[in-house]
């Protein structure tokens, strides 16, 4: 690296400092997002290719670039309390086009995880999916109308999944309980 030396102590001090300063920034948040997402979120240079590729952007105030900036600056509250966080369809178009090889989609996934963990508002449908899987093993369980059609097609009325073999469900419940996910989902949904 080229050593810059202007002979000005104040300027040299500024050049040595590589951090941004924002009053409500939380550096731990940046680090946590990076770890959970497994992507190099700090490499973002805010070009906006992500927002330009995003199918949700033209029809809402959701801007993936803004969330990338929040990730870098550690703007935890701003990111996790923004309802737009839940408008990402996870299509990964931004990720395929990012010139910095970042996966912005996975940054969103990490932030959603952190929103849940820190008690921020999580849309109901996400928690209801947890409840359904806990109960049946399926996020979209079978029903009687569908059973009749399956029979007509020569398929068993229930697929050979947890629907036919419910003895596998306790194992699934143990995994979910290990992370206390079902109890949390129940608690949040009952409060609403």
């Amino acid at each position, binding site marked *: 690296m080229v050593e810059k030396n202007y002979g000005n102590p104040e300027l040299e001090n500024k050049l040595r400092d590589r951090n941004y300063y924002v009053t409500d920034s939380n550096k731990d948040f940046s680090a946590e997002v990076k770890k959970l997402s497994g992507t190099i979120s700090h490499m973002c240079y805010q070009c906006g290719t992500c927002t330009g590729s995003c*199918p949700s952007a033209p029809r809402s105030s959701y801007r993936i670039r803004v969330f990338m900036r929040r990730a870098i600056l550690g703007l935890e509250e701003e990111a996790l309390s923004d309802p737009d966080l839940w408008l990402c369809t996870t299509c990964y*178009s931004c990720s*395929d086009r990012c010139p910095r090889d970042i996966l912005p989609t996975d940054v969103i996934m990490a932030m959603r*995880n952190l929103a849940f963990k820190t008690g921020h508002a999580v*849309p109901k449908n996400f928690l209801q999916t947890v409840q359904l899987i806990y109960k049946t093993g399926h996020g979209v*369980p079978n029903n009687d109308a569908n059973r009749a059609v399956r029979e007509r*097609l020569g398929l068993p009325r229930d697929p050979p999944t*947890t629907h036919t073999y419910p003895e*596998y469900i306790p194992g699934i419940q143990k995994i979910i309980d290990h992370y206390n*996910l079902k109890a949390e989902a129940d608690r949040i949904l009952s409060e609403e």
Partner: protein
Amino acid sequence: MATHMEHSYAFFLGCIAPNRYPGCEASAIKTSAKLGIELLPLKGASCCPAPGAFGSIDLNVWYAMAARNLCLAEEMGKDIALICNGCYKSIWEVNHKLKHNDELRDGVNEVLAEIDMQYKGTINVWHLAELYYDDKICGVKKVADSVTRPLTGTKVAVHYGCHLMKPQKDRHFGDTENPMWLEELVGALGAEPVQYRNKMQCCGAGGGVRGYDLLHALDITNEKLINIKEAGADALTEVCPFCQLQFDRGQVEIAQNFGKKYNLPILHFNELLGLAQGMTPAELAIDLHAVDCTSFLEKIQ
């Protein structure tokens, strides 16, 4: 690497195919059998679990739950074949991550030990469509040779969906801006594949958005339907039952909410292949689709 000589797979069903569009499941089993691919039941499998709705809440549980499904196939000693992009995202990607990340794998195995299971990393995961395209397993020519009722005279648009091929750098499908391999498969059935604007755009349903903000999801779907109709397609084919649900039931919801009607038949590639191999619409439960497919079926009579 893969067990390429052994054309027998554990069939991972997921949720939407068996529980909403059983024709996808039935046609997968029957069409693949005609191509020398055997799909065996994966007993006790669960939801993949849904990468958007479930993964958004806690990725660690997503890893562990997908790993449990992978363990069931490992116990069978079979690679997994599946027919849904969402399942592919969970099952393929978690398999890939656990194979290459020791810390993740150890964490998952700690949890799995509580239910006497262990993830070993001994199998691979495939989408049935990529197996159909793969010359080592099947190939376009073999698909074409299996056709007894060519779909001649029909124009079919292709929706690739997102989670099969993207993110590109972690997958093995190559170009995600304008891929053409599914069009080759559609062409093998005698149909004319049509190109349309913004082909690779999402259906709108993923990431939990369909459940969170239905109108937002439908607006994305509506944009795709406009583009597909403009290209003069008689039907849309896809390789993901969740995209299928969004395009098929979504058209009813779009009519209710936006007052727009497209009457575009939506067929999973397995259903399309089933028709081309001579299966009847009743054998495919196509009458269960929300959008009437008669216009398309009449063209191939």
